[in-house]
């Protein structure tokens, strides 16, 4: 058991070089979004940064009058909630199936994962044609169906990582004590996975909220938020665009941040004995709830 990185000694310039590249990656991933957030606080017509003392929510206040924006937001919220409500239990079920499988589990996971790689435009087009054929008229529901396939691989993955907190020995103990499969599931598995299920729900909601290509073919009369935003972005830049871009970014970051905050809190209460040198657990820790399983018992290996 070690808390050190694997490589601690001299790296002949490797460490600074690699760290610099990792930093560069983070910069190109975050800097434009942060710049947009700050620029949206500039009350002037001219975009760009102003001193923090001049920050103003002028453009955010102007958003309140944008009725079409709120209609799109409402539609996206409905679709996002519906997607999350469906994707979370289906993802959990698939994760439990994965664990119950033996030789087929890798193939099963790859199949589910492959849904992530179907281009959104093609999936949206195909689904919209099929739905029209069976006379389902486009609405929030058709968008939800499209988003469900997109969110599913993520929901399954998050549930799987969370499931690692539920050791088979714990389930076996419950069963030995007389609990039926359902009782064991409700009283042992579900509580242990509560955090991951919340993460799964939030991630599915966010993926749906921000999905653009699939919704393009599947929406009914009411646009979803990304479709409305895309139109606004390409039709001359009013600074309110930056405000609602900033708002949607802030909401997304806040939601993911909340999930991670919950992780960190849980992590600290399980800190003792939960830290291991094993980098595999670093991945697990992305998911709320896995920390319960990261104790000394799992360090001994559960397989």
């Amino acid at each position, binding site marked *: 058991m070690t808390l*050190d*990185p*694997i490589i601690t000694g001299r790296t*002949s310039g490797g460490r600074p070089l*690699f760290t610099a590249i*990792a930093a560069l*990656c*983070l910069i*190109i*991933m975050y*800097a*434009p*979004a942060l710049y*947009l957030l700050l620029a949206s606080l500039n009350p002037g017509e001219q975009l*760009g940064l102003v001193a923090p003392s001049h920050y103003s929510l002028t453009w955010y206040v102007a958003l309140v009058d944008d009725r079409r924006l709120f209609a799109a937001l409402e539609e996206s919220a409905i679709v996002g909630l519906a997607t999350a409500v469906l994707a979370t239990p289906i993802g959990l*079920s698939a*994760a*439990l*199936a994965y*664990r*119950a*499988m*033996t030789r087929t*589990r*890798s193939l099963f996971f*790859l199949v589910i994962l492959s849904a992530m*790689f*179907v*281009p*959104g*435009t*093609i*999936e949206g087009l195909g689904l919209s*044609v099929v739905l029209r054929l069976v006379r389902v008229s486009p609405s929030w529901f058709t968008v939800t169906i499209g988003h469900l*396939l997109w969110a*599913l691989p993520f929901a399954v993955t998050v549930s*799987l990582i969370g499931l690692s907190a539920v050791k*088979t020995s714990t389930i*076996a103990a419950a069963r030995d004590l007389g609990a039926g*499969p359902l009782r064991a599931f409700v009283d042992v598995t579900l509580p242990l996975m509560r955090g991951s299920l919340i993460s799964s729900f939030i991630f599915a909601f*966010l*993926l749906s909220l*921000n999905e*653009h*290509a699939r919704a393009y073919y599947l929406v009914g009369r009411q646009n979803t938020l990304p479709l409305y*935003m895309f139109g606004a*972005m*390409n039709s001359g830049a009013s600074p309110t665009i930056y405000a609602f871009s900033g708002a*949607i*970014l802030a909401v997304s970051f806040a*939601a993911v941040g909340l999930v*991670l905050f919950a992780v960190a809190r849980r992590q600290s209460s399980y800190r003792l004995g939960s830290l291991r*040198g094993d*980098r*595999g*657990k*670093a*991945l697990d820790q*992305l998911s709320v709830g896995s920390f319960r399983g990261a104790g000394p018992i799992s360090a001994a290996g*559960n397989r």
Partner: protein
Amino acid sequence: MTPHGKAAGRPGRPAFLLALPSLVVFVGVGVIPLALIAMWSLWSFDPDTYWIKPVWTLASYVALLKNGRSIVFLQTASLAALTATVSTLLAVPAATVIGLLSPPRRATLLIALFTIPFFTSGLVRAFAWRLVLGREGIINNALISLGLASTPVEWLLFSDFAVVLGMVAAYLPFAIIPIVLVFTRIEHSVIRASQDLGAGFWRMFFSIVLPLIMPGIVAGFLFVFVVAIGTSMEVQLLGGAGASSISIMINDVMRVVNFPLAFSIATVVVVLLIALIVIANHTLRLSLMFEDLGT
């Protein structure tokens, strides 16, 4: 303790029942529409109904080769390949920092940082590059005030450069995470042994680490390539005036309700993507990367 918990005793059936909902979604929303699209791409356009009729023809596949459509395919593929290459070159060092050079807590933090943006709006993040790269963007302002340029650099925005940069920034997690996954399976003793035997960092990196993480590198490259092939918003928001992509072409074709042509483009893309994933899975045993999840 049973090897597979609840499934013990009656293997197969509960697993199948539990897998059923996700398989129904996968088949119903994914497989069936794509299979129908593939079939309908071989039907003829029906000018009476603006739909298609079951007269089998290869006409749409012939049309696919006309009007510079094959060029759009090549353009999309080469931009995607460039994006995947750049992403991979950045991802290997970044994943190495996570997998080899960071203590567990920092590794966790870095994985989180690399994952978070994925769940924020891709549209807004692509759009944000306009502010950064535009004529009056932060980069041009900096170049001019530093005296490195006298007029704004035009090719920064509405160019292939902007598209590739936008896609790299958006899809880097797809390149990094598979490599990190592979790092978790490397026996640390192998690396320690090479150091005990006197290998310096670079020797160790190139002859021990790089071969071991190669499956993750190739998987990451493929993931980014596949996602970049299918996207359209980076090209639409950051590309030059005539820039197109396969997805944009599909939208354009659908605007004139040419269903068979749209279907044939979609079919070619999906078949290519499936072939890529199958070949990669066969040669790299991709699925083994996911074998121990949740156990």
